[in-house]
């Protein structure tokens, strides 16, 4: 996979994680489920790739984590959006919309 393609995918995954967490705190597995749910099962990501993404986002200060008890009484690490993460999500959404509309415009040009 080329670097540019990998970068684009990683950026997109970051945005999807932020979006999934916008609706409330979740553990890693829950984030994967929510991404599938909000995309109408159109987006299938390799589940393991979520975690490096989550760690990177945490390092940037866009999400924070803490250990808690899950719905089936197991210890799980829950992630939630920080204030800077919310701001970043808005920026990412705007960038994505601009890119998508520009690409569509280019594709529809005759």
């Amino acid at each position, binding site marked *: 996979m080329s670097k540019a393609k990998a970068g684009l995918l990683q950026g997109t995954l970051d945005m999807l994680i932020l979006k999934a967490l916008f609706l409330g705190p979740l*553990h*890693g*597995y829950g984030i*994967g489920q929510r991404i599938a749910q909000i995309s109408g099962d159109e987006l299938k990501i*390799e*589940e*393991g*790739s979520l*975690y*490096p993404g989550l*760690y*990177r986002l*945490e*390092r940037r*200060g866009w999400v*924070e984590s803490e250990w808690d008890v*899950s719905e*089936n009484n*197991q*210890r*799980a*690490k829950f992630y939630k959006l*920080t204030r800077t993460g919310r701001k970043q999500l808005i920026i990412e959404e705007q960038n994505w919309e601009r890119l998508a509309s520009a690409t569509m415009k280019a594709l529809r040009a005759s």
Partner: protein
Amino acid sequence: MSLIKATNRFLHAWRYPDDIAREVEAELSFHIEMRTRSNIGAGMDPDEARLAARKSFGDFDEVKTECCEISRSLPFNSTVLKMGVYLILAVLAGGTALVTVNLPHHNLSGVLWQLVAIAVLARAFIVGRRSISTRQFPIGIFKIKRERFHNDKVFSSDVSEKYGVGIAAHDEQGRTPVERMFK
């Protein structure tokens, strides 16, 4: 995560790498456990469900290693790091100056400590001067050294050609100016 929290986490990751590895492993195992349960709920038998869960997860060890590495990486950008180093240097130099002034100098150990303090101050002064002259923070020492080496090379060849100084490193027979003087 605030800068303090991020720094604490970073230091903890370096001090207790096993703790971080265990934490990451627990988190990833929880994911596989949840996926296995979901697969069983969808009608798979337990062994098949676990195998499918591991397959859909990808390379467990690779993900674990990557997560541990991210935890151990610096939690802030290099500018903040440079500022931090600069601050530490300033505090060190200030502290050393205070120690130097207040040390008793009538015994040998006092004199030795004063010498050490003076050496630290001198080093701080040199690094500070370099930083100011190159508009770089002290962490850029390596960069400065590399640039200087590069500049030496430039002076011995390119500059002489450009300005016609006549100190070209090698003549047409491959001899250096020193070799030319003695042969």
